């Protein structure tokens, strides 16, 4: 036991198991909301915090591994905890804590899966994600990976009575499974003739470039499918809205990151030295996803779909960062690569907090109003101030505004893009800065999206009378939101410390980290030779001081008198809440600018229409152009095959006769 306490790996193992046990405990009283909510989810949260703590401490511990005596006879379960795993475990634990706290207050009695069962699925989901991060051989990795997919599938289909949710769940599990098959193949390639499926064997294996490339592409396909990289993204905007909000938060905030983890693990650790041009593929896909995601997010009218698309955007940013790192690493620019990787990890961490926060916010709104459609929300900041202000933090953060955390990671990524011109390959060094341009565009659009998101939901006048009865979130929910919001702020204000940790994290990937000068704790100087620096605290302080001074000055020199009255609105009288900008309206400029991206179906009323209706349906070209034809193809083949079986016994006898004769003839 004592030795257990000294080994972070065993501790993690213990905690993950604890999660499993907490889940199983849910089956004791499957129907009781109170039991699951008041007892089990808080326990889960505690485990989460513990995981985060252990992971954080184990950042400084050397990598350790153990072999359990379960699994396949010839391939027992290998587990390994190095600083990369620790970083993602921290992410998992920290985010899960907030989400579990929120969930404790969130789940109510209702249709669909009984709370106890959901508790089991939820904690299995958490535990399996943890095991994905610890797995050190192909079998246990796949085991955890698919368990993760499965448990999350059940969570997605909690409200299985709704057909859309069922089809969403199906699509999700199908794509996840196909992705898993690709990952399995890529492991099969990576073992490189040793036929040992432990990761150590893969590290040791020497692949010739062709095989390495195919392994990389397979992994990219598999992990990309899980991460929701365009064009494998179609499941994401379906599944995330379908799930209960805490689950959406987990999936978007944490599960997508496990895909990122897999990508990093495979590319930099298992495959050893990546080839530089792999990075270009990732960059292209990533940037396209980023742009695609944010553009679609701007056009959404369902708040959870909007967030789902924004997740696609962020995943795109992350993967483009990885691509950049690959390019740099492949061309021997270790420092630049380290910077890019750190930016990626940082952004992953940020996104876990921001996106979970936002999803939970939508959850609270959903509970208060029962409404997901932006067109029927509005003015909630008066009814539910807690949720509104905490969500605002998340929105500003994800919009990449200083001094919050979203800005820091994007800042780092842009800094690493500045190295692009030093890449030896011609053309590439020209293309990459253009990539920066796209990235910046996506980031700016994210701001647009977030203003739409927050403004339409929380500001303005309520668009429905029912919203007047909306109630603010309960204590547990507030606590959960607050946890994540604080996380956002801290990650934003203390970049120097975070980066110091992260540059340790990338060491197992074969990078030395950054030449940080740890002079002043409040000042972030990632690359001294570039003389760039960023001090959010100062920043923050100055703004605060100025605000305080101004207020004081105004009060001192003038007065604070305020009169309340009707809105001025250029003197127009009879303006009602329906005349506010709708979600569609707010998205209009984007739809106008990026028309080629959308498959749009509009319903425009005529001028003399007595009951005018305006409808616009946004379709996904990729879905129509790629997935539907694929489905049709399979069906067509199936129909063709079915011709073989026409029910006539003579035909069947003929089959066996022919088979027999052919084989005999072969033997002659």
């Amino acid at each position, binding site marked *: 036991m004592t030795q257990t306490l000294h080994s972070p790996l065993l501790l993690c193992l213990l905690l993950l198991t604890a999660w499993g046990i907490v889940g199983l405990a849910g089956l004791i009283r499957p129907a009781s909301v109170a039991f699951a909510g008041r007892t089990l989810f808080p326990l889960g949260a505690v485990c989460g915090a513990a995981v985060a703590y252990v992971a954080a401490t184990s950042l400084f511990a050397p990598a350790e591994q153990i072999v359990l005596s*379960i*699994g*396949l*006879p*010839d391939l027992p379960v290998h587990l390994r905890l190095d600083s990369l795993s620790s970083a993602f475990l921290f992410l998992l634990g920290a985010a899960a804590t907030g989400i579990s706290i929120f969930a404790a207050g969130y789940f109510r009695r209702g249709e669909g899966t009984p709370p106890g069962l959901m508790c089991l699925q939820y904690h299995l989901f958490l535990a399996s994600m943890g095991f994905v991060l610890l797995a050190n051989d*192909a*079998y246990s990795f*796949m*085991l955890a*990976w*698919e*368990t993760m997919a*499965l448990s999350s599938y059940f969570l997605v*289909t909690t409200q*299985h*009575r709704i*057909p859309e949710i*069922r089809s969403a*769940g*199906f699509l999700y*599990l*199908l794509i996840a*499974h*196909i992705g898993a*098959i690709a990952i*399995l*193949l890529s492991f*099969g*390639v990576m073992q490189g003739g040793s*036929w040992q*499926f432990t990761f150590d064997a893969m590290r040791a294996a020497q692949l010739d470039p062709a095989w390495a490339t195919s392994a990389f592409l397979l992994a990219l396909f598999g992990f990309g499918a899980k991460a929701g990289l365009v064009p494998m993204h179609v499941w994401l905007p379906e599944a995330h809205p379908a799930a209960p909000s805490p689950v959406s938060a987990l999936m978007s905030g944490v599960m997508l990151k496990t895909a990122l983890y897999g990508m990093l693990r495979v590319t930099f650790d298992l495959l050893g030295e990546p080839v530089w041009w792999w990075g270009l593929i990732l960059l292209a896909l990533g940037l396209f996803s980023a742009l695609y995601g944010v553009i679609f997010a701007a056009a959404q009218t369902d708040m959870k779909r909007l967030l789902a698309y924004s997740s696609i955007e962020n995943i795109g940013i992350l993967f483009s960062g990885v691509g950049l790192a690959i390019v740099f690493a492949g061309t021997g620019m270790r420092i630049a690569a380290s910077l890019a990787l750190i930016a990626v990890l940082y952004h992953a961490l940020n996104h876990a907090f921001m996106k979970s926060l936002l999803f939970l916010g939508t959850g609270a709104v959903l509970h208060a109003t029962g409404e997901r459609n932006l067109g029927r929300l509005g003015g909630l900041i008066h009814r539910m101030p807690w949720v509104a202000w905490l969500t605002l933090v998340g929105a500003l953060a994800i919009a990449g505004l200083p001094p919050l955390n979203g800005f820091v990671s994007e800042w780092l990524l842009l800094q690493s893009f500045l190295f692009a011109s030093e890449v030896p390959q011609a053309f590439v060094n020209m293309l990459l800065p253009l990539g920066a341009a796209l990235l910046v565009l996506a980031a700016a659009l994210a701001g647009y999206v977030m203003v739409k998101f927050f403004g339409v939901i929380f500001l303005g006048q309520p668009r429905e009378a029912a919203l007047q009865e909306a109630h603010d979130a309960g204590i547990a929910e507030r606590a959960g939101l607050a946890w994540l919001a604080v996380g956002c702020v801290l990650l934003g204000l203390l970049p120097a410390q975070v980066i110091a940790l992260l540059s340790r994290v990338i060491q197992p990937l074969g990078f030395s980290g950054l030449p940080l000068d740890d002079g002043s704790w409040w000042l972030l100087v990632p690359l001294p030779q570039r003389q760039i620096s960023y001090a959010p605290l100062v920043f923050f302080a100055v703004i605060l001081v100025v605000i305080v001074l101004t207020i004081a000055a105004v009060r001192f020199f003038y007065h604070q008198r305020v009169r309340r009255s009707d809105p001025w609105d250029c003197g127009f009288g009879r303006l009602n809440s329906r005349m506010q900008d709708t979600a569609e309206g707010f998205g209009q400029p984007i739809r106008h600018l990026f028309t080629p991206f959308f498959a749009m179906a509009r319903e425009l009323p005529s001028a003399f229409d007595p009951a005018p209706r305006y409808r616009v349906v946004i379709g996904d070209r990729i879905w129509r152009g790629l997935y539907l034809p694929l489905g049709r193809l*399979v*069906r067509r*083949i*199936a*129909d063709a*095959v*079915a011709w*073989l*079986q026409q029910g006539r*016994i003579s035909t*069947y*006898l003929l*089959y*066996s006769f022919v*088979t*027999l004769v052919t*084989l*005999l003839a*072969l*033997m002659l």
Partner: protein
Amino acid sequence: MSSTLTFVVLLGTPLLGALVLGLTGGKRWAPNLNVAFSLLTFLAACALTSNIITHGNVVLMQEQFFIDAFNVFLVTLTAFVGLTTALFSRPYMRIEVEHGRVNSAQLRLYHSMYQLFMATMLIALTTNNLGLMWVAMEAATLSTVLLVTLYRTPASLEAGWKYFILCGVGIAQALFGTILLYFAAEKILGAEGVGALLWTHLNVVKAQLEPAVLSLAFVFLLVGYGTKVGLAPLHNWLPDAHAEGPTPISAVLSGLLLNVAMYAVVRCKVLVEGSLQSSLPGRMLMGFGLLSVVLAAFFLWRQRDAKRLFAYSSIEHMGIITFAFGMGGPVANFAALLHMTVHSLTKSAIFFAVGHATQKAGSQLMDDIRGLITLSPTVGWGLMMGSLAILGMPPFGVFASEFLILTTAMKQQPWATPILLLALGVAFAAIFSRVQPMVFGETTAKRLPHPPALVPVFTHLALVLMLGLFIPPYLADWYRAAARLIGGH
């Protein structure tokens, strides 16, 4: 207790059961009697197994029967699934009787034939004499034909007829193969060849057997027993027979009979490979396997009948197993044996769940079965979990064996891997898209007069789950020993 005595009990119980139930099978308590006989059989099997573990392989009754690493665990498995299926058929058949689909005479036939079927399979598994094995296989067909037609519906009659003719003709080929084998063996093992059909003897001298003859023999045997395994394109009887018979029979057909047929094929393959000293038989098996997997995967897309769907999934999995045996070698054989085990457990569990589901919905059409978990969560989750398991979703055992098979395939037959994976993906989409609405959504099901039998379903699933996470050492050793026995390159 000596092996012989145990063995006599093992074979005697079901035979006796067939006799007794043949007289009393229509009575109200007959189902319990059925269970009792099956239980006794299972106990005997366990005792036998423990004997084997302690004393090693045995040969019994003037060498006509033998137990070795290969068939011992199949015997246990058969007896076990026989028992659980009997448990399941208790409420199932009662409900059928109350729905008036079965009268007491038919019930009598059912019970007696059920025991007889068990007996024939146990004989086929344990006999050392290839001729006797053939006889047992044929008997297995005959004992189930009338069960397939139990409901006397037009469809069931058609299914039964096809089952009878196709398997009959197929098995006839196998007989010719056996004759040729005997013919070849006689040369070596002497005239009147007492041992000329005894597998143990043949195995010793297999290297000297005449290749030309054995290759022909193998073709006949493969086509013959392959028909019963359900290898495409000889599979056409299988979906009909599975879909139209009573569900317990579908369960044992899918879970056990196919295994036994596969066992026969492998036994023959061992001899032939030994004589030919070439990978030809292996390649044939691989070909059949791949073809079955691919065809079945696409057939799955057109299914409307729940039992038919899973029948095709059985064809698919038999294809996988055949492919694995075709590859041969310790790992592949190990995986194939494991897959035989988990498949028969999972598939029978699925049929249990489907059986109750169809009774609840009053129809076998999947469009009529909706939202099971809202009315009876246990059956719903059983079906869902079973389907996910059969689709190779971790942490269930099917994934373990498929993982091994695929990785070995990557090593030995890289070209085949993408095909297999493609087929698996297609099958996944097909089956899951049909199971999900059956389990989830608004319900159409109604309550049943008897509580469904859930113990069998969840025992099976629990076992499969365990095999996915942890294979007990002695079981692993069994598999290894059997794999060594089967050999292949």
